[in-house]
Protein backbone atom coordinates (compact mmCIF):
# COMPACT_ATOMS: atom_id res chain seq x y z
CA UNK A 1 0.00 0.00 0.00
CA UNK A 2 1.18 3.54 -0.52
CA UNK A 3 3.00 5.39 2.21
CA UNK A 4 2.35 9.05 2.98
CA UNK A 5 4.66 10.98 0.68
CA UNK A 6 5.06 14.09 2.79
CA UNK A 7 6.75 12.72 5.87
CA UNK A 8 4.14 13.37 8.47
CA UNK A 9 1.24 11.43 6.94
CA UNK A 10 0.59 8.01 8.45
CA UNK A 11 0.91 4.90 6.30
CA UNK A 12 -2.33 3.27 5.24
CA UNK A 13 -2.77 0.00 7.13
CA UNK A 14 -2.29 -3.07 4.95
CA UNK A 15 -5.66 -4.40 3.92
CA UNK A 16 -6.73 -7.60 5.64
CA UNK A 17 -9.71 -9.23 3.96
CA UNK A 18 -12.50 -9.83 6.44
CA UNK A 19 -13.62 -13.42 7.13
CA UNK A 20 -15.91 -14.78 4.43
CA UNK A 21 -14.80 -12.23 1.83
CA UNK A 22 -12.35 -14.49 0.03
CA UNK A 23 -13.37 -18.06 -0.71
CA UNK A 24 -10.05 -19.30 -1.93
CA UNK A 25 -7.48 -18.90 -4.64
CA UNK A 26 -8.09 -19.22 -8.36
CA UNK A 27 -5.45 -20.27 -10.84
CA UNK A 28 -4.59 -17.98 -13.74
CA UNK A 29 -1.81 -18.16 -16.36
CA UNK A 30 0.08 -15.52 -14.38
CA UNK A 31 -0.45 -16.85 -10.89
CA UNK A 32 -3.13 -17.14 -8.24
CA UNK A 33 -5.82 -14.55 -7.66
CA UNK A 34 -8.30 -14.35 -4.80
CA UNK A 35 -11.77 -15.65 -5.47
CA UNK A 36 -14.45 -13.50 -3.85
CA UNK A 37 -17.62 -14.69 -2.20
CA UNK A 38 -20.91 -13.44 -3.64
CA UNK A 39 -22.62 -13.61 -0.26
CA UNK A 40 -22.75 -10.94 2.41
CA UNK A 41 -21.79 -11.83 5.97
CA UNK A 42 -23.14 -10.04 9.01
CA UNK A 43 -19.93 -8.01 8.98
CA UNK A 44 -20.72 -6.79 5.48
CA UNK A 45 -24.20 -5.65 6.54
CA UNK A 46 -22.78 -3.85 9.56
CA UNK A 47 -20.15 -2.26 7.36
CA UNK A 48 -22.79 -1.00 4.94
CA UNK A 49 -24.71 0.48 7.86
CA UNK A 50 -21.55 2.09 9.22
CA UNK A 51 -20.87 3.68 5.83
CA UNK A 52 -24.35 5.23 5.77
CA UNK A 53 -23.77 6.59 9.25
CA UNK A 54 -20.40 7.96 8.20
CA UNK A 55 -18.36 5.76 10.53
CA UNK A 56 -14.99 4.42 9.43
CA UNK A 57 -15.31 5.55 5.83
CA UNK A 58 -11.60 6.10 5.39
CA UNK A 59 -10.57 2.51 5.83
CA UNK A 60 -13.40 0.82 3.97
CA UNK A 61 -11.42 -0.26 0.96
CA UNK A 62 -9.82 -3.31 -0.62
CA UNK A 63 -6.50 -3.73 -2.37
CA UNK A 64 -6.71 -2.93 -6.08
CA UNK A 65 -5.93 -5.72 -8.51
CA UNK A 66 -7.51 -8.73 -10.17
CA UNK A 67 -10.07 -10.91 -8.43
CA UNK A 68 -12.21 -13.85 -9.53
CA UNK A 69 -15.88 -14.57 -8.99
CA UNK A 70 -16.88 -18.18 -9.55
CA UNK A 71 -14.53 -20.09 -11.85
CA UNK A 72 -13.68 -17.69 -14.68
CA UNK A 73 -11.76 -19.04 -17.64
CA UNK A 74 -9.74 -17.18 -20.23
CA UNK A 75 -12.89 -16.14 -22.10
CA UNK A 76 -14.82 -14.84 -19.05
CA UNK A 77 -15.90 -11.17 -18.98
CA UNK A 78 -13.77 -8.60 -17.19
CA UNK A 79 -15.76 -6.17 -15.01
CA UNK A 80 -13.95 -3.06 -13.84
CA UNK A 81 -14.77 -1.36 -10.55
CA UNK A 82 -13.47 0.88 -7.76
CA UNK A 83 -11.81 -0.24 -4.51
CA UNK A 84 -14.49 1.13 -2.18
CA UNK A 85 -15.57 -1.99 -0.32
CA UNK A 86 -19.28 -1.10 -0.39
CA UNK A 87 -19.11 -0.79 -4.18
CA UNK A 88 -17.41 -4.14 -4.40
CA UNK A 89 -19.94 -5.69 -2.01
CA UNK A 90 -22.88 -4.59 -4.16
CA UNK A 91 -21.09 -5.77 -7.28
CA UNK A 92 -20.19 -9.27 -6.05
CA UNK A 93 -23.64 -9.81 -4.56
CA UNK A 94 -25.14 -9.20 -8.00
CA UNK A 95 -22.96 -11.90 -9.56
CA UNK A 96 -24.25 -14.99 -7.78
CA UNK A 97 -23.68 -18.06 -9.91
CA UNK A 98 -21.53 -16.20 -12.45
CA UNK A 99 -17.91 -16.63 -13.40
CA UNK A 100 -16.23 -13.30 -14.13
CA UNK A 101 -13.02 -11.43 -13.52
CA UNK A 102 -13.09 -8.27 -11.40
CA UNK A 103 -10.48 -5.64 -12.13
CA UNK A 104 -10.43 -3.35 -9.09
CA UNK A 105 -8.90 0.08 -9.65
CA UNK A 106 -7.19 2.18 -6.96
CA UNK A 107 -9.64 4.99 -6.21
CA UNK A 108 -8.57 5.61 -2.61
CA UNK A 109 -11.62 3.74 -1.37
CA UNK A 110 -14.11 5.99 -3.17
CA UNK A 111 -17.09 4.80 -5.21
CA UNK A 112 -17.04 4.80 -9.00
CA UNK A 113 -19.07 7.95 -9.67
CA UNK A 114 -17.35 10.21 -7.16
CA UNK A 115 -13.94 8.80 -8.07
CA UNK A 116 -14.60 9.37 -11.76
CA UNK A 117 -15.59 12.96 -11.00
CA UNK A 118 -12.48 13.50 -8.88
CA UNK A 119 -10.22 11.93 -11.50
CA UNK A 120 -9.09 8.74 -9.74
CA UNK A 121 -11.34 6.35 -11.68
CA UNK A 122 -9.62 7.41 -14.86
CA UNK A 123 -8.15 6.22 -18.15
CA UNK A 124 -4.58 6.18 -16.87
CA UNK A 125 -5.36 4.18 -13.73
CA UNK A 126 -7.29 1.68 -15.86
CA UNK A 127 -4.42 1.23 -18.30
CA UNK A 128 -1.86 1.04 -15.50
CA UNK A 129 -3.87 -1.54 -13.56
CA UNK A 130 -4.31 -3.69 -16.69
CA UNK A 131 -0.53 -3.69 -16.98
CA UNK A 132 0.11 -4.46 -13.32
CA UNK A 133 -2.17 -7.50 -13.24
CA UNK A 134 -1.00 -8.60 -16.73
CA UNK A 135 -4.59 -8.91 -17.87
CA UNK A 136 -3.48 -9.62 -21.42
CA UNK A 137 -2.14 -12.98 -20.20
CA UNK A 138 -5.21 -13.82 -18.13
CA UNK A 139 -7.92 -13.49 -20.78
CA UNK A 140 -7.88 -14.18 -24.50
CA UNK A 141 -10.36 -11.43 -25.40
CA UNK A 142 -9.77 -7.71 -25.10
CA UNK A 143 -13.12 -6.50 -23.74
CA UNK A 144 -13.57 -4.49 -20.56
CA UNK A 145 -16.97 -3.87 -19.05
CA UNK A 146 -17.06 -0.63 -17.07
CA UNK A 147 -19.93 0.80 -15.05
CA UNK A 148 -21.67 3.52 -17.06
CA UNK A 149 -20.93 6.14 -14.43
CA UNK A 150 -17.23 5.47 -14.97
CA UNK A 151 -17.61 7.37 -18.25
CA UNK A 152 -17.25 10.56 -16.24
CA UNK A 153 -13.59 9.70 -15.72
CA UNK A 154 -12.61 7.12 -18.33
CA UNK A 155 -12.41 7.94 -22.04
CA UNK A 156 -13.23 4.89 -24.14
CA UNK A 157 -11.64 6.46 -27.26
CA UNK A 158 -8.42 7.09 -25.31
CA UNK A 159 -8.34 3.47 -24.10
CA UNK A 160 -8.83 2.32 -27.69
CA UNK A 161 -5.99 4.54 -28.92
CA UNK A 162 -3.62 3.20 -26.22
CA UNK A 163 -3.90 -0.48 -27.08
CA UNK A 164 -6.08 -3.44 -27.99
CA UNK A 165 -8.55 -3.06 -25.09
CA UNK A 166 -12.12 -1.99 -25.82
CA UNK A 167 -14.43 -0.44 -23.26
CA UNK A 168 -18.05 -1.59 -23.12
CA UNK A 169 -20.36 0.48 -20.94
CA UNK A 170 -22.25 -1.70 -18.52
CA UNK A 171 -25.46 -0.70 -16.72
CA UNK A 172 -25.64 2.02 -14.05
CA UNK A 173 -26.56 -0.42 -11.34
CA UNK A 174 -24.82 -3.68 -10.45
CA UNK A 175 -28.15 -5.47 -10.05
CA UNK A 176 -28.75 -5.09 -13.79
CA UNK A 177 -25.50 -6.86 -14.67
CA UNK A 178 -26.92 -10.39 -14.99
CA UNK A 179 -29.57 -9.20 -17.46
CA UNK A 180 -26.96 -7.11 -19.29
CA UNK A 181 -24.56 -10.04 -19.60
CA UNK A 182 -27.29 -12.48 -20.62
CA UNK A 183 -28.40 -10.11 -23.37
CA UNK A 184 -24.89 -10.20 -24.81
CA UNK A 185 -23.71 -6.95 -23.22
CA UNK A 186 -26.70 -4.96 -24.40
CA UNK A 187 -28.27 -2.44 -22.01
CA UNK A 188 -31.92 -1.41 -22.06
CA UNK A 189 -32.75 2.32 -21.81
CA UNK A 190 -33.91 1.75 -18.23
CA UNK A 191 -30.48 0.40 -17.30
CA UNK A 192 -28.99 3.68 -18.50
CA UNK A 193 -31.33 6.12 -16.69
CA UNK A 194 -30.25 7.43 -13.30
CA UNK A 195 -33.10 7.84 -10.86
CA UNK A 196 -33.18 9.13 -7.31
CA UNK A 197 -35.84 7.11 -5.46
CA UNK A 198 -36.83 7.76 -1.86
CA UNK A 199 -34.65 4.99 -0.42
CA UNK A 200 -31.54 6.31 -2.14
CA UNK A 201 -32.36 9.73 -0.69
CA UNK A 202 -33.06 8.33 2.78
CA UNK A 203 -29.69 6.59 3.17
CA UNK A 204 -27.93 9.89 2.60
CA UNK A 205 -29.66 11.66 5.49
CA UNK A 206 -27.52 10.44 8.43
CA UNK A 207 -24.40 11.94 6.90
CA UNK A 208 -26.24 15.12 5.94
CA UNK A 209 -27.44 15.52 9.52
CA UNK A 210 -23.93 14.97 10.80
CA UNK A 211 -22.36 17.50 8.44
CA UNK A 212 -24.81 20.28 9.29
CA UNK A 213 -25.00 19.52 13.02
CA UNK A 214 -22.28 21.97 14.02
CA UNK A 215 -23.94 24.90 12.25
CA UNK A 216 -27.33 23.96 13.71
CA UNK A 217 -26.00 23.86 17.26
CA UNK A 218 -24.10 27.10 16.82
CA UNK A 219 -27.31 28.82 15.73
CA UNK A 220 -29.10 27.26 18.69
CA UNK A 221 -26.36 28.62 20.93
CA UNK A 222 -26.65 32.10 19.45
CA UNK A 223 -30.43 32.20 19.92
CA UNK A 224 -30.16 30.85 23.47
CA UNK A 225 -27.47 33.35 24.43
CA UNK A 226 -29.52 36.23 22.98
CA UNK A 227 -32.44 35.10 25.11
CA UNK A 228 -30.21 34.84 28.17
CA UNK A 229 -28.83 38.33 27.69
CA UNK A 230 -32.04 40.09 26.73
CA UNK A 231 -35.01 38.40 28.38
CA UNK A 232 -35.72 38.37 32.09
CA UNK A 233 -34.81 35.34 34.17
CA UNK A 234 -38.27 33.74 34.43
CA UNK A 235 -38.62 33.91 30.63
CA UNK A 236 -35.18 32.41 30.14
CA UNK A 237 -35.81 29.61 32.60
CA UNK A 238 -39.10 28.60 31.06
CA UNK A 239 -38.48 29.26 27.39
CA UNK A 240 -34.82 28.54 26.60
CA UNK A 241 -35.75 25.13 25.07
CA UNK A 242 -37.65 27.06 22.39
CA UNK A 243 -34.53 29.02 21.46
CA UNK A 244 -32.69 25.75 20.98
CA UNK A 245 -35.52 23.77 19.39
CA UNK A 246 -36.23 26.22 16.57
CA UNK A 247 -32.85 25.87 14.81
CA UNK A 248 -32.73 22.15 15.53
CA UNK A 249 -36.15 21.69 13.95
CA UNK A 250 -34.86 23.55 10.90
CA UNK A 251 -31.87 21.20 10.90
CA UNK A 252 -34.13 18.13 10.91
CA UNK A 253 -36.35 19.67 8.26
CA UNK A 254 -33.45 20.57 5.97
CA UNK A 255 -31.40 17.40 6.38
CA UNK A 256 -34.01 14.70 6.91
CA UNK A 257 -37.51 15.77 5.93
CA UNK A 258 -36.41 17.72 2.86
CA UNK A 259 -34.45 14.90 1.22
CA UNK A 260 -37.27 12.43 1.85
CA UNK A 261 -39.91 14.81 0.44
CA UNK A 262 -37.75 16.13 -2.41
CA UNK A 263 -40.20 15.44 -5.27
CA UNK A 264 -42.94 17.27 -3.36
CA UNK A 265 -41.02 20.48 -2.80
CA UNK A 266 -41.87 23.22 -5.33
CA UNK A 267 -39.30 25.19 -7.27
CA UNK A 268 -36.04 24.07 -8.82
CA UNK A 269 -33.52 25.85 -6.60
CA UNK A 270 -32.82 23.96 -3.40
CA UNK A 271 -32.68 27.16 -1.37
CA UNK A 272 -36.26 27.89 -2.49
CA UNK A 273 -37.44 24.35 -1.77
CA UNK A 274 -35.82 24.56 1.65
CA UNK A 275 -37.31 27.95 2.43
CA UNK A 276 -40.83 26.78 1.56
CA UNK A 277 -40.36 23.67 3.67
CA UNK A 278 -39.09 25.84 6.52
CA UNK A 279 -42.15 28.05 6.17
CA UNK A 280 -44.45 25.06 6.54
CA UNK A 281 -42.54 23.67 9.50
CA UNK A 282 -42.53 27.13 11.11
CA UNK A 283 -46.33 26.92 11.22
CA UNK A 284 -45.90 24.23 13.85
CA UNK A 285 -44.02 26.67 16.02
CA UNK A 286 -46.44 29.54 15.55
CA UNK A 287 -48.20 28.66 18.78
CA UNK A 288 -45.17 29.48 20.93
CA UNK A 289 -45.05 33.06 19.69
CA UNK A 290 -46.89 35.44 21.99
CA UNK A 291 -46.30 38.52 19.88
CA UNK A 292 -46.44 39.19 16.16
CA UNK A 293 -42.80 40.23 16.18
CA UNK A 294 -41.78 36.93 17.76
CA UNK A 295 -43.89 35.07 15.20
CA UNK A 296 -42.19 36.84 12.30
CA UNK A 297 -38.77 36.19 13.84
CA UNK A 298 -39.50 32.47 14.18
CA UNK A 299 -40.86 32.24 10.65
CA UNK A 300 -37.86 34.04 9.16
CA UNK A 301 -35.25 32.11 11.13
CA UNK A 302 -36.90 28.76 10.49
CA UNK A 303 -37.26 29.42 6.76
CA UNK A 304 -33.74 30.68 6.22
CA UNK A 305 -32.11 27.98 8.34
CA UNK A 306 -34.02 25.19 6.58
CA UNK A 307 -33.16 26.81 3.25
CA UNK A 308 -29.46 26.85 4.15
CA UNK A 309 -29.34 23.27 5.42
CA UNK A 310 -31.28 21.90 2.45
CA UNK A 311 -29.01 23.75 0.03
CA UNK A 312 -26.22 21.41 1.07
CA UNK A 313 -28.17 18.43 -0.22
CA UNK A 314 -27.27 19.57 -3.75
CA UNK A 315 -24.00 17.69 -3.37
CA UNK A 316 -25.80 14.42 -2.72
CA UNK A 317 -28.27 14.38 -5.58
CA UNK A 318 -27.93 12.62 -8.90
CA UNK A 319 -29.09 15.55 -10.98
CA UNK A 320 -27.76 18.93 -9.85
CA UNK A 321 -25.25 20.64 -12.16
CA UNK A 322 -22.27 22.70 -11.02
CA UNK A 323 -23.00 25.92 -12.92
CA UNK A 324 -26.57 25.84 -11.61
CA UNK A 325 -25.37 25.48 -8.03
CA UNK A 326 -22.92 28.35 -8.56
CA UNK A 327 -25.75 30.56 -9.88
CA UNK A 328 -27.96 29.57 -7.00
CA UNK A 329 -25.33 30.25 -4.34
CA UNK A 330 -24.53 33.70 -5.71
CA UNK A 331 -28.09 34.79 -4.98
CA UNK A 332 -29.12 32.48 -2.13
CA UNK A 333 -26.25 32.98 0.30
CA UNK A 334 -26.42 36.79 0.51
CA UNK A 335 -30.22 36.69 0.77
CA UNK A 336 -30.03 34.04 3.48
CA UNK A 337 -27.47 36.10 5.38
CA UNK A 338 -29.64 39.21 5.31
CA UNK A 339 -32.82 37.37 6.25
CA UNK A 340 -31.07 35.59 9.11
CA UNK A 341 -29.81 38.91 10.42
CA UNK A 342 -33.29 40.43 10.27
CA UNK A 343 -34.70 37.34 11.97
CA UNK A 344 -32.19 37.50 14.81
CA UNK A 345 -32.77 41.24 15.26
CA UNK A 346 -36.52 40.67 15.48
CA UNK A 347 -35.90 37.78 17.86
CA UNK A 348 -33.88 40.06 20.10
CA UNK A 349 -36.43 42.88 19.93
CA UNK A 350 -39.29 40.49 20.68
CA UNK A 351 -37.42 39.14 23.71
CA UNK A 352 -36.73 42.66 24.94
CA UNK A 353 -40.40 43.64 24.70
CA UNK A 354 -41.76 40.44 26.21
Amino acid at each position, binding site marked *: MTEGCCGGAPAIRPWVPPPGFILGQHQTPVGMVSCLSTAWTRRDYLGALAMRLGIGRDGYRVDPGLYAIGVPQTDAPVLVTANYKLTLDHLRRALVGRSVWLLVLETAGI*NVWCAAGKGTFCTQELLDRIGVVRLDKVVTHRRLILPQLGAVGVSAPAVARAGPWRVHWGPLRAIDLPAYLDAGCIATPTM*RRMLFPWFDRLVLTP*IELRQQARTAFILAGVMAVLMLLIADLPTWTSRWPIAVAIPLTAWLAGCLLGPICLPLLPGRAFSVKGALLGLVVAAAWACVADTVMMLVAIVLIMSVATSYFFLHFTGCTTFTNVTG*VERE*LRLALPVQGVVLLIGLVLWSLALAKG
Partner: protein
Amino acid sequence: MLYLTAKTLRLDTTICIGCGTCAEVCPHAVFEIVKPKARIVATERCMECGACARNCPVKAIAVKTGVGCATGLINRALGGSGECCCEQAGCG
Protein backbone atom coordinates in the same frame (compact mmCIF):
# COMPACT_ATOMS: atom_id res chain seq x y z
CA MET B 1 -37.04 16.11 -10.55
CA LEU B 2 -35.39 19.01 -12.29
CA TYR B 3 -32.74 21.45 -11.16
CA LEU B 4 -31.77 24.84 -12.59
CA THR B 5 -31.03 24.28 -16.26
CA ALA B 6 -27.38 23.76 -17.08
CA LYS B 7 -26.28 26.26 -19.68
CA THR B 8 -22.85 25.03 -20.71
CA LEU B 9 -23.63 21.92 -22.79
CA ARG B 10 -22.71 22.36 -26.45
CA LEU B 11 -22.96 19.89 -29.32
CA ASP B 12 -21.32 20.76 -32.62
CA THR B 13 -23.46 18.92 -35.16
CA THR B 14 -21.07 19.73 -38.00
CA ILE B 15 -18.44 17.51 -36.37
CA CYS B 16 -20.85 14.91 -34.95
CA ILE B 17 -20.78 11.51 -36.65
CA GLY B 18 -23.88 10.09 -34.97
CA CYS B 19 -22.03 7.21 -33.29
CA GLY B 20 -24.43 7.21 -30.32
CA THR B 21 -21.79 7.20 -27.57
CA CYS B 22 -23.17 10.35 -25.92
CA ALA B 23 -26.63 8.79 -25.66
CA GLU B 24 -25.07 5.61 -24.31
CA VAL B 25 -23.06 7.16 -21.47
CA CYS B 26 -25.44 9.93 -20.43
CA PRO B 27 -27.26 8.96 -17.20
CA HIS B 28 -30.13 11.34 -17.92
CA ALA B 29 -31.01 10.65 -21.58
CA VAL B 30 -30.12 14.19 -22.62
CA PHE B 31 -29.21 13.04 -26.13
CA GLU B 32 -31.09 11.23 -28.84
CA ILE B 33 -29.68 9.85 -32.06
CA VAL B 34 -31.63 11.06 -35.06
CA LYS B 35 -29.54 9.63 -37.86
CA PRO B 36 -27.02 10.70 -39.01
CA LYS B 37 -26.48 12.98 -36.02
CA ALA B 38 -26.97 13.22 -32.27
CA ARG B 39 -29.33 15.80 -30.84
CA ILE B 40 -29.71 17.40 -27.41
CA VAL B 41 -33.31 16.77 -26.38
CA ALA B 42 -33.32 17.52 -22.67
CA THR B 43 -30.87 20.21 -21.58
CA GLU B 44 -32.90 20.66 -18.42
CA ARG B 45 -31.78 17.20 -17.26
CA CYS B 46 -28.06 17.75 -17.90
CA MET B 47 -25.97 17.57 -14.75
CA GLU B 48 -22.68 18.60 -16.42
CA CYS B 49 -20.91 15.38 -15.44
CA GLY B 50 -18.89 15.47 -18.66
CA ALA B 51 -19.20 11.79 -19.58
CA CYS B 52 -20.44 12.71 -23.05
CA ALA B 53 -17.65 15.18 -23.79
CA ARG B 54 -15.00 12.81 -22.47
CA ASN B 55 -16.17 9.93 -24.63
CA CYS B 56 -17.14 11.65 -27.86
CA PRO B 57 -14.67 10.19 -30.37
CA VAL B 58 -14.60 13.36 -32.46
CA LYS B 59 -14.78 15.91 -29.66
CA ALA B 60 -18.05 17.39 -30.84
CA ILE B 61 -19.28 18.03 -27.29
CA ALA B 62 -18.17 20.63 -24.75
CA VAL B 63 -19.49 21.19 -21.24
CA LYS B 64 -18.21 22.86 -18.09
CA THR B 65 -17.84 20.06 -15.55
CA GLY B 66 -17.58 19.94 -11.81
CA VAL B 67 -19.46 18.60 -8.83
CA GLY B 68 -22.82 20.30 -8.22
CA CYS B 69 -22.18 20.46 -4.50
CA ALA B 70 -22.95 23.59 -2.48
CA THR B 71 -20.74 22.45 0.41
CA GLY B 72 -17.65 22.19 -1.78
CA LEU B 73 -18.29 25.54 -3.46
CA ILE B 74 -18.86 27.27 -0.12
CA ASN B 75 -15.67 25.69 1.26
CA ARG B 76 -13.69 27.00 -1.66
CA ALA B 77 -15.21 30.47 -1.35
CA LEU B 78 -14.16 30.55 2.29
CA GLY B 79 -10.59 29.80 1.25
CA GLY B 80 -10.72 26.12 1.99
CA SER B 81 -9.61 23.19 -0.12
CA GLY B 82 -12.80 23.20 -2.11
CA GLU B 83 -13.16 19.57 -1.26
CA CYS B 84 -16.69 18.43 -1.67
CA CYS B 85 -18.63 17.05 1.25
CA CYS B 86 -17.75 13.54 0.18
CA GLU B 87 -14.13 13.76 1.26
CA GLN B 88 -14.46 10.05 1.37
CA ALA B 89 -17.13 7.75 0.20
CA GLY B 90 -19.99 9.75 1.62
CA CYS B 91 -22.01 10.14 -1.54
CA GLY B 92 -22.31 6.58 -2.42
